[in-house]
C-alpha cells in the first residue's frame, strides 16, 4: 500500500527531506507501526523518529493519535507538537 509521508520542522530537517512515497509491508497497520518501520530507512529517519513522545501526526490532513489505524490513508504527516500563534 503506497502512501505519501510528509515531514515538518526538525523532523523534516533530521530526515533530510520533506516528502517521500513509501510502500510499507502488510503488517504495518497503525501510525506507530509506520513510524517504527520508517526508522529503518536511514540514520536520519532513525534519529528523527527515535522518540514517539516528541512526535505528532496527521492522516489525510486531520490530526490523529499515533495509535490510529492507517486504513487507506493517502497522505501521512509526521511532525513535532505545533507552535503557531
Amino acid at each position, binding site marked *: 500500500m503506497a502512501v505519501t509521508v510528509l515531514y515538518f520542522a526538525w523532523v523534516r530537517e533530521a530526515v533530510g527531506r520533506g516528502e517521500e512515497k513509501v510502500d510499507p509491508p502488510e503488517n504495518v497497520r497503525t501510525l506507530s507501526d509506520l513510524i517504527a518501520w520508517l526508522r529503518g530507512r536511514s540514520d536520519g529517519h532513525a534519529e528523527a523518529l527515535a522518540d514517539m513522545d516528541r512526535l505528532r501526526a496527521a492522516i489525510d490532513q486531520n490530526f490523529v493519535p499515533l495509535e490510529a489505524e492507517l486504513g487507506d490513508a493517502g497522505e501521512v*504527516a509526521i511532525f*513535532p507538537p*505545533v*507552535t*503557531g500563534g
Partner: protein
Amino acid sequence: MIRVSVQPAPIELGIEVAALEERGAGGVATFTGVVRSDDGVTELHLEHYPGMTESALVGIAEQAMARWDLMGVTIVHRVGPMVPGDRIVFVGTAASHRRAALESCAYLIDRLKTDAPFWKRERLGSDSRWVEARDSDGDAAARWD
C-alpha cells in the same frame, strides 16, 4: 462570514478590522500576536502544512461561529521569515454582544495554538532553534472542551 488567510505578506490590521466593522454588528474584538523584541530573537521563521493549515483554521472559525452568535470571524496567520515587531497572527470577531466577541476571540487564539499545523523557528544572532510547545497552551485550549 469567515475569512482565513495564511500568508507570507505582512498582516494589514486596518484592513482586517475594517472588514469586521462593516459586518454592522456593533462590536469588534481582536487579538494580535507580535514578534517580541526583548528576548534576543533576531528573526522568526514560521513553517506550516499547506492545505491542512487552511482547513484547520476554517474548522476553528466554524466552531466559534457555532458556539457564539457572531457576524464575522477572521483568522490571518503569517508564514515564512519575520522580524521583531512584525505581526504573526491576527484573530478578530464581530458580534452584537461584546462578551461574545471577546470570548470567541480568546477561543480562536487558544485553539489556534494547539489545533493548527504551524512550527516556529527562532534565530538569535548566529544561533537558531525550533520553539518547544508549551504545556500552558494545551491547558488554555482544554478550558474550552
